[in-house]
């Protein structure tokens, strides 16, 4: 557990220190120290993962040494350790891009990205409902602050994002208050055996789910996401889409798979799965129609979260371990693929000087590596073998197809694949058009393009570690 706390404290410390000696350091050194702290945090997270794997079960820690009911309890399960490693890896990749690519990033990005990393780590580890509320709030504030990095055009969507995020947190808080009023517990593991399906618990869980769905931009409540993620700087939108929306999804999973009584989870399962399927198609269709590159990628986030929501819904309906594995494989594969997609989109946007998809004509010649990164990352979103996306979709499909009764869900997954293939290949096909090429600026930024490609290669490399990932997640995350 100490390594996990180290992995949590390092970014917070470095964020605070960077803010403290803000004037003394040049931007280069700020970036350097931020990346060093991410590397240290990644190493600590990896060691924490080894600890959990050796220990076999999840490791608990009562903060402050008080007894179990009173103190805030941190839980390091195999899932949260894996998510710690994933968060650190994403921050490292995107940090490298932000640091080395010519597009550059505002100086304040670095302390904010350390803070974001710290709050996400606190979220993965916490097993206390109110503590989760505060980590959600931390996440929301840093995300909005980072969206505001790109200047005035981002203020309006950022303000809207913040207002909705505050409202969502209050929904969640009211739910926590009702649960505390009813059961007198705030700790997730103590609440789990005691909850029954009565009016107050139903109301509380409904409130909390609405709040979390709004924060995670899950289908009916996703309207704030595209403007916010499009107007943010490239590196920031990669972080937001790849990581920040996953925090509330994690809490939604904790809520329904542990806190809620099983019969309530059984009832909400199909509803979430259907919402996921609709998100898949609705998000995909609007991604196909939108004329701007970054909006396509933003709507694809909404669509791909539909996959995760469907996996969560089916997990709650049937309690199958494969669904659990599929859910978290989706989260990780989507995170890496989306980061690469956004970085590639940002690179192409700055090299070709256009925000529209039409401007990408002939991109395979003018910015070949960036377009290759876009295509490879898109391949993982669609789920072409041997990418991480394919791994997740395969594990999801297997139980669906075993009983004929579940085939409609499989058709939903098929629909999702076709829709995501449509909006990815709409962009990729356009880039092969040599008739009306959009000429790039004098020397496109090679380093930036290769760094955009890095996460995509990683998501395709996931196939090699597929077996290990699946075996790690098989523990059910408890």
């Amino acid at each position, binding site marked *: 557990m100490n390594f996990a706390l180290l992995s949590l404290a390092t970014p917070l410390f470095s964020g605070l220190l960077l803010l403290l000696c803000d004037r003394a350091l040049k931007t280069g050194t700020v970036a350097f120290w931020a990346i060093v702290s991410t590397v240290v945090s990644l190493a600590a997270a990896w060691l924490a993962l080894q600890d959990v794997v050796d220990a076999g079960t999840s490791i608990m820690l009562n903060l402050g040494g008080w007894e179990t009911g009173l103190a805030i309890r941190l839980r390091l399960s195999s899932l949260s350790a894996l998510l710690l490693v994933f968060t650190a890896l994403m921050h490292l990749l995107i940090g490298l891009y932000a640091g080395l690519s010519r597009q550059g990033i505002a100086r304040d990005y670095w302390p904010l990205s350390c803070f974001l990393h710290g709050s996400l780590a606190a979220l993965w580890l916490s097993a206390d409902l109110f503590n989760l509320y505060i980590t959600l709030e931390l996440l929301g504030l840093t995300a909005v602050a980072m969206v505001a990095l790109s200047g005035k055009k981002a203020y309006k969507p950022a303000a809207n994002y913040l207002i909705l995020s505050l409202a969502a947190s209050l929904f969640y808080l009211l739910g926590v208050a009702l649960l505390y009023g009813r059961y007198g517990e705030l700790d997730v593991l103590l609440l789990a055996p005691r909850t029954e399906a009565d009016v107050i618990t139903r109301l509380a869980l409904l409130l909390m789910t609405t709040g979390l769905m709004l924060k995670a931009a899950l289908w009916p409540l996703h309207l704030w996401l595209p403007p916010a993620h499009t107007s943010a700087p490239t590196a920031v939108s990669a972080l937001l889409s790849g990581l920040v929306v996953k925090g509330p999804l994690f809490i939604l999973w904790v809520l329904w798979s542990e806190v809620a009584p099983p019969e309530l989870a059984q009832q909400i399962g199909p509803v979430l799965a259907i919402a996921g399927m609709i998100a898949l198609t609705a998000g995909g269709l609007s991604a196909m129609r939108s004329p701007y590159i970054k909006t396509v990628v933003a709507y694809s986030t909404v669509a791909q979260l539909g996959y995760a929501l469907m996996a969560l819904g089916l997990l709650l309906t049937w309690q199958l371990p494969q669904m659990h594995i599929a859910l978290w494989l989706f989260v990780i594969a989507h995170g890496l693929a989306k980061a690469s997609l956004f970085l590639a989109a940002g690179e192409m946007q700055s090299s070709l000087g256009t925000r529209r998809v039409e401007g990408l004509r002939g991109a395979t010649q003018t910015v070949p590596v960036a377009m290759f990164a876009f295509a490879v990352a898109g391949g993982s979103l669609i789920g072409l073998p041997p990418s991480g996306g394919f*791994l997740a979709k*395969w594990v999801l499909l297997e139980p669906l*197809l075993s009983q004929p009764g579940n085939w409609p869900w499989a058709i939903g997954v098929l629909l999702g694949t076709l829709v995501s293939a449509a909006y990815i290949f709409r962009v990729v096909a356009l880039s092969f058009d*040599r008739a009306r090429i959009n000429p790039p600026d004098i020397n496109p930024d090679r380093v930036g393009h290769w760094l955009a490609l890095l996460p995509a290669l990683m998501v395709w490399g996931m196939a090699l570690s*597929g*077996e290990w990932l699946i075996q790690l997640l098989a523990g059910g995350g408890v």
Partner: protein
Amino acid sequence: MTLSWTTVLPVLIILSSLIPGLLIFATPEKAARRRIIINLSGIFVKLMLVALMLAGVSQGLEFSFTIAFLPGAALVLQGDALALQFIALSSVLWLMTTVYAIAYMEKSPLRSRFFGYFSLCVSATVGIALAGNMITFLLFYELLTLATFPLVVHRGTPEAMRAGRIYLAYTLGGGAMLLMGIALLHSIAGTPNFVPGGYVTSLVDGNSLSLRIAFGLMIVGLGVKAALVPLHGWLPQAMVAPAPVSALLHAVAVVKAGAFGIIRVVYDVYGIEATTLLALTQPLMWLAATTIIFASIRALQQQDIKKRLAYSTISQVSYITLGVSLVGPVAAVGAIVHLVHQGLMKITLFFCAGNFAETLGIHKIQEMDGLGQRMPWSMAAFTVGALGMIGVPPIAGFISKWYLVTGALEVNQDWVLLILAGSALLNAAYFMPLIYRGWFHAPPAGGWHENNFAGQRLETHWMLLLPPLVTALLSILVGIFAGSIFSPLGWSQFIVNREFGL
């Protein structure tokens, strides 16, 4: 998994075209010489490795390579006899097409990209051949789509873009169907390696419905690439691509991948027994038969040479599906050997069509008058290919049709005889006018649109002329020496003996 040479060889075969491909991507446009050297050296290394594996397999050695990928479904590369034949075909024709493409693409831009994707495409095809289970097959099947799409849209003109979109829509839809079929099959029977008798027979009684649906999904997925009737729409559109690409797509890579997949599914996944038990052979047979007749009739209506050749390919490839669905050993030999023969003949026809277009700017059939006098060698090769397609002995086509007919009679499917005879007539109907125009019509009074390479010793660039002549010669040799053990027929017999356990 011990790393002996028998396990590493399959990987080396794939890498022998993958690595040159990546290197070619990196070579700048101007460095033509370096690109040619890398390309040709890659081809020769692959041919050496294939020969090595050929020798090994004939001595009964086992070549297989596995990596853990999914729970219960590893990535397996298996070098068995069926795979080897397809690899041998694709390597030889890759050599021919590369030589041809070097001359054909001399003036056009983006050759590094072209040859890069070219070799990626061949490594995907070899991967399909070597795939040891359905998951690996799916992996290379999807990679083939991604590798061939840039070739189809290589010219980047609006028509090429339109053809590319249609191609993507069909192949990605097919890929998704194939994935669902494989996933459904995996949930029933898991994904063990390919086994000659198939691994599904014991499970037939329990879940026959889902097995039928899985088979249907897989055939639809594979049918897109094998251009079975309702799913053939993309093939004629893809004629917009440059000649070497249409040659490669039709004779070697995409179309054959689909047919090869059907062979694998029927023989090594379901097995003869299970397919007959589930009564799946009848619908497959009707589908193949309708494709043969329908495509031949459509070919008659085409005015453009390449479009006509495209429809002829659709009908010819369905011979393989027909042979497979006849489920008799003799018909199986006919189907597997036709895989090779059709490859050789069709690539000759496309090379010649490319020559006519490149040298004299001829695209329509009416413009073929008097070609025999201006380009006698190309016209001769074209005639050999066309006659082979019709089934005139001793060219290769006759042998596969012969085995298909005897196979059909052996399993007393007499109506198949009518189909094959009808198709032979139709072949004659749409090929004879071209040959007649070429040899017996006077050249056009006003001369041809273009007249490149006029007045030189050879009728056109030597690298454009050599490949069709070699493949035409091969078609004849393969026909004449069909009896010997080393001919495609002998090798197919060896495969079928192993498949049917004779």
